């Protein structure tokens, strides 16, 4: 075989040739878009509070509305464009969680409504729920043991 490098050396060599992500630009975009999405959440929160909703209802309704926004933007085929620009700025907010539920569900609609939409809906969101809920149970048990 025509080869002058070990795998390790080749990996380093390929790494050097590959163009790098523009981290400064990407991070700036993520900061601005992520920040703005959170400001939208804050506007909704402040509005609900001013209408006299209590803490719990406000937080639930804000989450619900943000998710709805993420879903609608995904359905209208614009959330992927936003993601292309903003990266983590639109992945990390809860709107991105909504996007991760709707996008595979839409994509796999061609495989039917049970094993397509119903099952594929959770390919990305499923792990989030698994690890989020499991973490809360573990932390809850530790909290219980420490305090009771």
């Amino acid at each position: 075989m025509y080869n002058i490098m070990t795998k390790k050396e080749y990996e380093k060599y390929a790494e050097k040739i590959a163009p790098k992500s523009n981290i400064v630009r990407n991070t700036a975009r993520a900061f601005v878009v992520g920040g703005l999405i959170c400001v939208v959440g804050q506007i909704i929160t402040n509005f609900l509070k001013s209408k006299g909703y209590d803490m719990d209802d406000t937080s639930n309704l804000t989450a619900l509305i943000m998710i709805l926004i993420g879903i609608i933007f995904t359905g209208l085929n614009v959330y992927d464009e936003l993601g292309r620009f903003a990266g983590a700025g639109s992945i990390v907010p809860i709107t991105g969680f909504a996007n991760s539920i709707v996008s595979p569900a839409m994509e796999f609609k061609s495989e039917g409504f049970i094993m397509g939409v119903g099952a594929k809906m959770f390919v990305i969101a499923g792990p989030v729920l698994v690890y989020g809920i499991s973490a809360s149970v573990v932390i809850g048990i530790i909290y219980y043991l420490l305090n009771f």
Partner: protein
Amino acid sequence: MMQNTFMTYLGAFIVGGIICAIGQILIDKTKLTSARILVLFVTTGAVLGGLGIYEKIVQIGGAGATVPLTGFGYNLVKGTMKEINQHGLLGAFTGGVKAAAAGITAAVFFGYLASVAFTPKAKR
């Protein structure tokens, strides 16, 4: 009052922006996929919530701390601890999802409706 409202927006923008920026640095530096980033953030939020740290971030950032997925993890843990205070150990199994019920249910239900109504479009 006006001053106060503006400060909530500023806090949300900066805290939310920083959390997302951390996510972006992780993506660019480590090649983590978005699914892994989401899992990492929800778990981190849960842990920071358990340690009582995230509560402070929420006080500064408001929606800037609750809207990112770390806030989702924090919310799960906050609900768990609240239920444990009221119902004992059973709360570890009821509190989390109860607190996040609105978000999860909305995501599933509206997500289903949207996937029926809309179709994906090719990127160009």
